[in-house]
C-alpha cells in the first residue's frame, strides 16, 4: 500500500510543484485514516569563489516542512498544499534562514564592527553614557539632560537597563550586575571577546576601554534589529549588510572565500535594496580597517577567527529546526 501511495505522491509532486520540492515517506494516521506525505526541500545555495581559478559550489539548506498531501486508502488525493502556499512557505523559510544567519554573523563580528567609523558615530551617545559611569560610578538625570538628544540617550539607557548593565538609582543610573560581571571577566563568552580583541593589535588594550567596547558590542549583537528598526538608526545597516554579504556564503561553504568587490555588490543587491558600487565601497574599506575584510590582488577575503566563531553556532542544526 505504502508503495502505491509513494507512486501517487511522486507523480503529484513532479507535476504540481517545482523540481526543488521533495517528499518524505508516507505515514498513515489512524485518527482520520489518511496517508500523510510531508513536503520538504533541500534548497540549493550556489556559491561562486572568485579565486583563481574560480570555483562554483552548491550547498543545501533544509526546509523540512513546506506542506503535505493527504491520500485515502482508495489511492485518491483528498487534499494537498497548493503551489502558491508552497512558494509562500519557501519565502518565509528563506527569510527566517537569512535572519538567523545574519544574527550569527553579527554575533561573531560585533566586537570588531563597533570600531568602524560608522558604528563609532552612531554609538557615540552610548559611549558618553558608559564613559561617565566608568569614570564617576554613575550618571545623573541632570547629566543626561545636557546630551544633544536626550530622548536618544534614554533609549540607550533603556537598553543598558534591560541588559542589567546599569540600574536605576534615586537621581540617575549606576552600574549593575552585568557590568560587574564583564569587569571581572567572569563570563566566558566575554573572555573570548577580550582574547579576540587582544589579538587585533591596533585595538585598545587597557581593561577599562575594553570594557566599554565589550558593552557596546554586546548591545549590538543582542539588539541589532531593535537599534535599527525601533531606534531608527538605519545608518548602521549598510555596513552590517555588507559584512553579512561577505560572510553568508563563507558560513555555507565553511571556509574563507575570495570575492571581487563587484561580486559583493552583485550579491548585496540580490538581498538588499539596489545600490551602485560607490555606496558600498566605503563600507568595504571600513570593514578592512577593523580586520573583518582584507583586500589583495583585486580580491576580498575575510577573517578565519571570525568565521570559526560563526561555525561554532552549529548553524545547520538550527536551520533544520525550521518549521512553518
Amino acid at each position, binding site marked *: 500500500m505504502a508503495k502505491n501511495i509513494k507512486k501517487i505522491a511522486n507523480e503529484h509532486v513532479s*507535476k504540481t510543484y517545482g523540481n526543488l520540492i521533495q517528499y518524505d515517506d508516507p505515514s498513515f494516521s489512524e485518527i482520520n485514516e489518511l496517508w500523510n506525505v510531508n513536503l520538504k526541500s533541500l534548497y540549493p545555495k550556489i556559491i561562486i569563489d572568485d579565486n583563481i581559478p574560480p570555483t562554483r559550489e552548491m550547498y543545501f539548506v533544509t526546509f523540512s516542512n513546506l506542506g503535505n498531501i493527504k491520500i485515502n486508502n482508495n489511492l485518491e488525493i483528498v487534499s494537498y498544499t497548493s503551489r502558491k502556499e508552497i*512558494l509562500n512557505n519557501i519565502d518565509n523559510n528563506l527569510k527566517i534562514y537569512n535572519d538567523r544567519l545574519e544574527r550569527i554573523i553579527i554575533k561573531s563580528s560585533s566586537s570588531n564592527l563597533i570600531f568602524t567609523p560608522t558604528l563609532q558615530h552612531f554609538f557615540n551617545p552610548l559611549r558618553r553614557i558608559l564613559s561617565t559611569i566608568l569614570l564617576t560610578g554613575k550618571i545623573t538625570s541632570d547629566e543626561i539632560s545636557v546630551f544633544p538628544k536626550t530622548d536618544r540617550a534614554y533609549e540607550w539607557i533603556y537598553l543598558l537597563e534591560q541588559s542589567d548593565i546599569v540600574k536605576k538609582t534615586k537621581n540617575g543610573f549606576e552600574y549593575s550586575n552585568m557590568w560587574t560581571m564583564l569587569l571581572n571577566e567572569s563570563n566566558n563568552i566575554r573572555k573570548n571577546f577580550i582574547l579576540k580583541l587582544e589579538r587585533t593589535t591596533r585595538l585598545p588594550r587597557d581593561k577599562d576601554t575594553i570594557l566599554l567596547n565589550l558593552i557596546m558590542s554586546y548591545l549590538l549583537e543582542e539588539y541589532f534589529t531593535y537599534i535599527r528598526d525601533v531606534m531608527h538608526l538605519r545608518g548602521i545597516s549598510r555596513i552590517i549588510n555588507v559584512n553579512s554579504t561577505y560572510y553568508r556564503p563563507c558560513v555555507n*561553504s565553511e571556509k574563507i572565500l575570495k570575492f571581487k568587490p563587484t561580486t559583493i555588490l552583485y550579491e548585496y543587491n540580490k538581498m538588499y535594496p539596489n545600490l551602485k558600487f560607490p555606496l558600498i565601497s566605503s563600507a568595504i574599506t571600513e570593514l578592512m580597517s577593523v580586520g573583518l575584510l582584507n583586500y589583495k590582488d583585486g580580491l576580498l577575503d575575510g577573517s578565519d577567527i571570525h568565521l570559526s566563531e560563526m561555525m561554532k553556532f552549529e548553524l545547520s542544526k538550527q536551520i533544520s529546526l525550521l518549521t512553518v
Partner: protein
Amino acid sequence: MASEKKDFPYDYYSKIYQTDAYSCIPICEKIVLDVMKYKIQGIPDLSIEEISSIIGTEKDGTPQGYNVERINEHLKLTSPSLEFKLDFLIPKWEIILNEVNEENPFKKPVIMMIMQYDTHELNWMRHAVVLFKADNKWVTYFDPIYGECSEPTSKFYNQWSHNDRLCIMLKIGQRVQRVLEEYSTEVKEEN
C-alpha cells in the same frame, strides 16, 4: 574538434551560469535554443526570464510535467520545425546516444533531469543539465550550477535513473511549417 566547437560554443556557457536556486530548466532550454540557432532559422531570442514565465518556473523550480513543452508555442516560425518533447521512463540510453552523437540530420543536445549532488555529495536535488557528449563509458554535460562536467556514464546513468529517466529531447522537422512571413518576403523580392 572544430565542428564540435561550432555545435557547442564553450565560451558561451560561462555567460549563462545559474545564480539563483531554481532556474536550471529555463537555462537548459535557453542553452539548447542558442545552440540550435547555429543550424535552425527563426529561433526567437528568448531571455531566461521569458522562458521561466512560459514554462512556469518559480522559487520552487519548474514542475517536471508537460509545461516544459509550452516553449513550443514560441517556436512556430522555425525552419525546419523545432519542438521540445518531454519523455520519461521510455527513452533508452541508445536513443539518448543517438540524439547526442548522430550528425545527420542534426546533432541534438538533450536536457537530462538528474539527481544532482551538493559539493560534498551528501544530499541531492532534482536538477536539469544539458548532455552534449556521451558514450557508454563517459559523459560530458553542462550543468548550470557547476559548469562543464565529465563523469563516468555509470554514475550519470544512476543519477538520471533515480529521476525516472526524465529528459527533454528535440524533435526537428516533424511538424509542417507554414511561414507566411517568409513567403511574402520572397514574393516581394521576386517582384
